[in-house]
């Protein structure tokens, strides 16, 4: 692997660590199996790319994309809380609705961003090459997101949100408006995913209607890989683990796809993902099994 592919994998890994943080909030903290991300990731990309190509400021476009993601999450939460639709089903409904919405926003299956300014090109100094600058900027964004989440989840409201996912009945008995917490958590989660989609479109040269396929699996893969690498119940370690998981995961994908002797090609990506997730899910169980045997 060349330095270029390595930095490319790092860059995509960083973007997907935002997705992974979002998935961590919904799946782990709220225990809400949320597939909306498959729609809110391209939603972020579609909104950002469409706004930028129509002349908007890329920073403004990115912020609007983030808000769009939050609204998508809010609607999924609302379907579940107010209309009492099962959580998984509510998110699937939102996901397929977003497919049409994304096509409407873009007006066509893809919006290229080749010559348009992006948040990266605007900040680009002459002295650094773009493929070095992008990962650097993304490190800043990801760390900011991680620390903001760490902070938020140790506030009174954040703690109430975690309690809602852990034991909703107890949370209510302690005066927590659990419905509101689910709505807020889903908005936060999908805002991160929308931001990731916006940044992805700006690093990959545009938004595409199919860019969201499998986002949830990649996000979950990152969470699971991170948790098996750095198992910890402490939140600030768990968020680090999730970020590391996303990056490690992308490295493995890049390695698998760039090693000629394995003979894998780009179209094998999803198969490799499925295999990696399976391995990451099975390894901790095997470890438990073995250590359990030793105990006897």
């Amino acid at each position, binding site marked *: 692997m060349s330095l270029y592919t390595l930095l490319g994998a790092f860059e995509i890994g960083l973007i997907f660590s935002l997705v992974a943080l979002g998935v961590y909030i919904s799946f782990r903290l709220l225990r809400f199996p949320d597939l909306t991300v498959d729609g809110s990731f391209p939603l972020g990309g579609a909104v950002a790319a469409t706004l930028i190509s129509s002349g908007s400021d890329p920073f403004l476009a990115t912020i609007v994309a983030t808000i769009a993601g939050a609204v998508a999450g809010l609607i999924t939460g609302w379907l579940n809380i107010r209309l009492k639709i099962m959580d998984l089903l509510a998110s699937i409904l939102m996901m397929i609705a977003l497919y049409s919405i994304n096509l409407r926003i873009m007006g066509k299956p893809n919006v290229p961003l080749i010559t348009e300014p992006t948040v990266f090109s605007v900040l680009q100094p002459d002295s650094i090459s773009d493929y070095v600058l992008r990962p650097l900027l993304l490190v800043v964004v990801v760390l900011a997101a991680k620390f903001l989440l760490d902070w*938020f989840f*140790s*506030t*009174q*409201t*954040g*703690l*109430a949100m*975690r*309690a809602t996912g*852990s*034991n909703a*009945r*107890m*949370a*209510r*008995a*302690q*005066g*927590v*408006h*659990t419905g509101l917490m689910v709505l807020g958590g889903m908005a936060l989660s999908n805002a991160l995913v929308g931001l990731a989609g916006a940044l992805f479109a700006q690093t990959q040269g545009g938004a595409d209607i199919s860019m969201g396929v499998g986002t949830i699996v990649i996000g979950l893969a990152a969470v699971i890989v991170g948790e098996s690498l750095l198992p910890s*119940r402490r939140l600030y370690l768990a968020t680090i683990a999730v970020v590391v998981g996303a990056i490690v995961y992308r490295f493995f994908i890049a390695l698998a796809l760039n090693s000629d002797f394995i003979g894998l090609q780009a179209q094998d990506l999803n198969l490799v993902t499925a295999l990696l997730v399976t391995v990451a899910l099975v390894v901790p169980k095997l470890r438990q099994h073995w250590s359990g045997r030793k105990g006897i």
Partner: protein
Amino acid sequence: MLRAQDLHITFNPGTPIETRALRGMSLDIPSGQFVTVIGSNGAGKSTFLNAVSGELRVDSGRIEIDGIDMTRQPVWERARHVARVFQDPMAGTCEDLTIEENMALAEMRGHKRGLGWAVKPALREEFRAQLATLGLGLENRLSDRIGLLSGGQRQAVSLLMAALRPSRLLLLDEHTAALDPRTADFVLQLTVRIVAEHKLTTMMVTHSMRQALDVGERTVMLHQGKVVLDVSGDERKGMTVKDLLAMFERVRGEQIDDDALLLG
């Protein structure tokens, strides 16, 4: 203080498994009183408790706390006035959170939660002091996950949590039932102490007649979703489990007679 008037709750109405859990249940508890509630399985004890806490909506009737109508308020709104300890030690605490985080949640019961730190150093010291009174060594385990604690320890912490905030009503739902006899006794003694210290108005549901007579100052017996026996003061003082059982049999007998009359 608590005024429950003519509460009715029917589960699965209009189906073969229709259950009329509460049938005109009324109970007044004056401020500061410790009431124990007994009754056989299906008498409506838990249903009544859940109706007061707001987990179940009543079909008809009215629930007031200090003159405020609570009948339509959801659980999280009533939590301002009502503290609760569940039967299942797992239900009353968040096992994924630490001891101090659980206590911090309870500390904010009935208050608006903002973006301030949930656990501040001053608060931590207060929790430490509170936990020390339990004599279980938990004061040194503030940042341990509460899931690591035994059932008895968790119930003890739940009781502390219920008393962290002044509340008008404390609901105890067979909170010693899932514990071994020694731990149950410890938790019961702790309950009596905390209730006395904070002068809490308390309603304790129990299946143990012994317990029902030993603690508190008034005992209420439910049968078929209604209060059938209400003893307090001198009458209750000399009472033994045997007396209570005899009264229960008599009440049940009368009920059966009533039904027989109806059917006849």
